[in-house]
């Protein structure tokens, strides 16, 4: 019994030694031993082999279904103006056909509903969770998959849990300690150090490999950083490369402990639930933060909810009314290595984190875009759209005008009337001669 105990202690000590010296310390210094990149390269080779095997398997078994990541239908046919104009200036029965076709097309495949569930991959990446359509192909593939399960759950998962626990406790302890110091530049420097090292450890805890592009465009103090939102891990990804002031609601439990300790060392902006409802109070607090030019840049996700990283949805204009320079950032996750999207209606936070820690890895591309400011004659909504298009363009994501709030709510009535107005203007514009009393057309 004693021998067993001694062996267990010995193993545990060796384990902690490996973790601390080979992973944690280099991570804190921002260095890398290169293990992760080798791992990723091996993984890519295996996944490519798996893809070829699956394609071969599909040829042999024609009943295996094909995934369609780009949607079900091809929208042929012109816009409203093109379809209607040749038919004549009058209203005709067949005009309605344009709307019928559009309507049925929306029933078959619409742009919005698919954004709130995980992206369907073009080829299986050997994780059961992305297995929507794939059937049994071959023995070798199943063996590799089994090996993958063992590696992910047996080897990587304990490692990642250890690192995350260390990282979070370091955050709480470190920020509390720094909080005791008086306000000075030393305190600021120390607090930034603590934050960055902790986030680096957490990033290792997810096996995250982040490629930062255009780092000279990084957000400066007194600015506002906006980004597309896929998962709460976005925060870890961005904070690895700079210090931000977080914005959010005050939570209870573990999150609350983290929030309270973080705010001791540097000013984050946490709102009570009652304050969130008052938009002016929120805007004023943020404005005050930005106006103090020596405070850290604020990190905001204007979409307001998690989208599945294939598109960018409407940026809420509230963030753009604060003033100051906007530093847009585009984040794109590589879906082959793990599905980073947090479907909050399907998974709660804990099961989501467990899923993340048992994926292959998280590979991200982060692009810093040049800063933008509101221009003359532009209102907040137009500015928001401009920033959104820039982010979507850079990240290779689809630029949608829909509101992320549709995940939980219905379409606003004002939008429903847009199409009617457009059609009316076509008809009355052309039949102005028949109805001299018709009201003037507004476009």
């Amino acid at each position, binding site marked *: 019994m004693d021998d067993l105990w001694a062996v267990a202690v010995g193993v545990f000590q060796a384990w902690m030694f490996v973790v601390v010296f080979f992973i944690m310390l280099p991570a804190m210094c921002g260095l890398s031993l290169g293990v992760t990149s080798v791992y990723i390269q091996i993984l890519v080779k295996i996944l490519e082999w798996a893809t070829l095997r699956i394609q071969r398997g599909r040829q042999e078994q024609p009943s295996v279904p094909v995934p369609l990541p780009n949607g*079900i239908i091809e929208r042929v046919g012109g816009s409203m103006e093109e379809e209607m104009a040749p038919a004549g200036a009058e*209203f005709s029965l067949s005009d309605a056909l344009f709307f019928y076709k559009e309507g049925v*097309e929306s029933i078959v495949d619409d742009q919005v509903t698919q954004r709130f569930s995980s992206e369907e991959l073009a080829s299986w990446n050997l994780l059961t969770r992305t297995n929507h359509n794939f*059937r049994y192909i071959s023995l070798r593939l199943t063996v590799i998959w089994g090996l993958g399960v063992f590696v992910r759950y047996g080897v990587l998962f304990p490692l990642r849990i250890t690192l995350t626990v260390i990282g979070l406790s370091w955050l709480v302890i470190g920020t509390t300690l720094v909080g005791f110091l008086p306000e000075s530049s030393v305190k600021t420097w120390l607090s930034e150090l603590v934050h960055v090292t902790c986030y680096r450890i957490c990033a290792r805890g997810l096996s995250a490999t982040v490629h930062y592009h255009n780092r000279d465009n990084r957000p400066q103090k007194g600015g506002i950083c906006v980004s597309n939102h896929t998962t709460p891990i976005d925060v870890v990804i961005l904070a690895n490369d700079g210090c931000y002031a977080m914005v959010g609601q005050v939570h209870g439990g573990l999150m609350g402990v983290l929030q309270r300790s973080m705010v001791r060392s540097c000013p984050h902006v946490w709102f009570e639930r009652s304050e969130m409802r008052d938009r002016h109070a929120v805007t004023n607090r943020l404005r005050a933060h930005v106006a103090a030019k020596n405070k850290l840049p604020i990190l905001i996700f204007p979409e307001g909810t998690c989208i599945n990283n294939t598109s960018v949805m409407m940026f809420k204009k509230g963030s753009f009314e604060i003033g100051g320079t906007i530093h847009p950032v585009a984040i794109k996750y590589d879906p082959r290595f793990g599905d980073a999207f947090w479907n909050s209606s399907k998974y709660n936070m804990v099961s989501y984190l467990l899923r993340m820690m048992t994926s292959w890895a998280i590979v991200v591309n982060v692009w810093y875009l040049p800063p933008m400011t509101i221009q003359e004659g532009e209102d907040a909504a137009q500015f928001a759209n401009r920033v959104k298009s820039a982010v979507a363009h850079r990240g290779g994501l689809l630029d949608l005008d829909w509101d992320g709030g549709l995940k939980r709510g219905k379409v606003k009535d004002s939008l429903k*009337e847009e199409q009617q107005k457009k059609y009316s203007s076509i008809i009355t514009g052309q039949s102005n001669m028949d109805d001299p009393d018709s009201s003037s057309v507004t476009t």
Partner: protein
Amino acid sequence: MGALQSASAHPEYGDLAEKTGFSIGKIRVLHKRFKQLSHNEETLRRDHLNDIPDLACNPIRAQIVEAFFDRRNYHQNGEGPVQEIGFEEFLVVMSHFRPPSLHMTEEQRENVRREKLRFLFNMHDTDNDGTITLEEYRHVVEELLSRSGALEKETAKSIADAAMLEVASISMGHMEPDEFYEGITFEHFLKLLHGFEIESKMNIHFLNMDTSTLCK
């Protein structure tokens, strides 16, 4: 384990394929979409379709949704509305929008035309009396035009009246002053849309889902 199911989990796809003319691949994809829309329930209701944001912006969404719940479109000679539909009915209504296959005889093409025009006619003829009356026609014009307030209700009404008059003159020739035009019957409807290429306009192009395209 979901990964290792056998491929023939849905033998009824074969029957549906024969009935509607869709290929097995397309039926599978549409079934997935059906389950997504109905939130994994067995039947679809009107409010499931009303939840689609793209559809909410369509001025005649009410008619489109009704078409799915209208027994006249199920090819079973039934009539009247239903409250909820299963996948089979969904597929049958969808099949009206299937593009005509390339190898069709003239007669088959004519049948396809008639079917599609019948579908369009049913959408206008809401009380199912076999004619599109002036009231029903006005209703469609209003839905399309005036609710947004860009057009006065009176203007929409006069547009509908003018169009109806033209229809009457085409189908009935010259009318006596006391003759009453009851409405557009299906035969008139066919005559009106005689030149209209409905079989090419009323189509939804499905992306090619057959596995044969994967072979390189």
